[in-house]
């Protein structure tokens, strides 16, 4: 039971990463590798700030700001520097690794005995693992609602059009470069927030905690899509969170089977690869129906 609650809590917190990447990967059609650096950047910023006595809430806001700055750099490299999207992200991600070491001063900082967003009076009064569930639900609800509202504005529609058909967007006077920069900043701000929350929840920041994050983010997006099929845009945003929770439950099952935590990146990649190959497998083996019967409401 505890393990299940923990998995759901982790799924909710990590869903933020999927939602952030959804903005760039799915809406802008921009494969943003920056997140591999932004995630630990958010963690490093928040944890270092807290260990210097800064209020956890303020430290978390700083992490969001740091993430947005990283997004800005990638955005400028891509739009003004004309560097291909994948490479622009990799450059920023690589540079951030050094920045993170500078920020933390060492490769691992513990938050033992320090205040975090998770050890306020209300949070500690909750049963074990429920703190991340409550925090996750609040954050995800707020972010999802904000995203839904944003995408339904004139600005949000122009944002969607930029990713959907840049040629048309430009011919309607939409400043596509600006849209891409804003999208990368918002997306990486969310990823920075996610890193800050995960670090506070874990009680430490580690220089290597970003490895594999893009696969985790993609897994939540793709599992959500594969599991729930045709959805409206707003429903898709909810599906990302559900996908993130399903992914954590899959990991839980796999770990119960005897794999160790060291195998996580291998498992993540395999899970994502299988999900992405489902349409192909379906064609050849007709596997989809029996696999998905359980999760899909109707066919």
């Amino acid at each position, binding site marked *: 039971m505890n393990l299940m609650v923990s998995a759901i809590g982790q799924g909710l917190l990590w869903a933020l990463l999927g939602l952030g990447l959804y903005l760039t990967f799915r809406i802008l059609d921009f494969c943003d590798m920056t997140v591999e650096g932004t995630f630990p950047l958010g963690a490093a910023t928040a944890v270092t700030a807290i260990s210097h006595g800064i209020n956890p809430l303020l430290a978390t806001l700083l992490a969001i700001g740091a993430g947005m700055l990283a997004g800005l750099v990638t955005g400028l490299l891509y739009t003004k520097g004309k560097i291909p999207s994948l490479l622009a992200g990799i450059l920023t991600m690589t540079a951030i690794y050094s920045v993170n070491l500078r920020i933390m001063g060492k490769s691992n900082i513990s938050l033992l005995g320090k205040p975090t967003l998770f050890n306020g009076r209300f949070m500690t009064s909750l049963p074990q693992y429920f703190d991340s569930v409550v925090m996750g639900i609040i954050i995800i609800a707020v972010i999802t609602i904000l995203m839904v509202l944003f995408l339904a*504005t004139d600005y949000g*529609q122009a944002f*969607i059009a930029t990713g*959907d058909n840049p*040629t*048309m967007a430009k011919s*309607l006077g*939409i*400043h596509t470069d600006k849209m891409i920069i804003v999208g990368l900043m918002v997306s990486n701000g969310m990823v920075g927030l996610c890193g800050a929350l995960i670090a506070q929840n874990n009680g430490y920041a580690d220089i290597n905690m970003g490895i594999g994050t893009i696969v985790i983010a993609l897994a939540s997006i793709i599992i959500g899509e594969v599991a729930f099929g045709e959805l409206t845009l707003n429903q898709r945003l909810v599906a990302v969170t559900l996908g993130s929770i399903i992914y954590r439950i899959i990991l839980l099952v796999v770990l119960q089977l005897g794999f160790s935590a060291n195998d996580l990146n291998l498992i993540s990649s395999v899970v994502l690869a299988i999900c992405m190959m489902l349409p192909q497998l379906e064609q050849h083996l007709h596997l989809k129906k029996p696999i998905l019967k359980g999760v899909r409401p109707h066919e």
Partner: protein
Amino acid sequence: MSKPILELKNVQTVVNKGTANETTILKGINLAINEGDFITIVGTNGAGKSTLFNVIGGNLSVDAGQILHNGTDITKSSEEQRTTFLARVFQDPKLGTAPRMTVAENMLLATKRGERRHLVHRKLKANIARFTELAATMNNGLEKRMTTATGALSGGQRQALSFLMATLKRPDILLLDEHTAALDPHTSLNLLHATNERITHDHLTALMITHHLEDALTYGNRLIVLQNGQIKADFCGQEKQELTVEKLYHYFED
């Protein structure tokens, strides 16, 4: 005679500058487009028709010369800036619409062509009746597909939608780049009729590139022959009406 709405003065463009493949595509184009002109443009492949549109639209910068809009120099203004007064329909049906957005959403985007977009609710519902009515004028069932993603439309419907979107907010200049070339003959004719009706009814100023000499003769009040980066002939009014396919065809031989 009133001032031209758009004027090109000795416009030249060079591609692959500084390399062995350096070519001058437009070799000094002088063109005054008057309000209400519906100009058809013909010319061989490589004559510079598309380049001319890209220069007017701002996708391509000019290497010499000037472009004036209502007397204001816009030579240096960006593609996005020019959309305040300019709309275009591309040849490729895929280029004119956003495939994952619905017909109505696409039309809503077009109502704000060239305007700043704010963080205010898009108000799609308030516009849907007007959009449906407009879509019905295309006579191809578009009005029944308002909530369909445009990626699922036929090429003809997509192109009709692109045309509607270009005229939703009245442009000073409408550029039609062979916008019916990718369609079957019947659909193409249908869209050309709708195009002509809209342009004459609303007194729009339009430029239309076409490879069909009959169409070039049938539509518009003015016809331009582009050849090798230059305007070879410019027929207006009576002159254009007396033109025949045979006479026009001579420009394509040699």
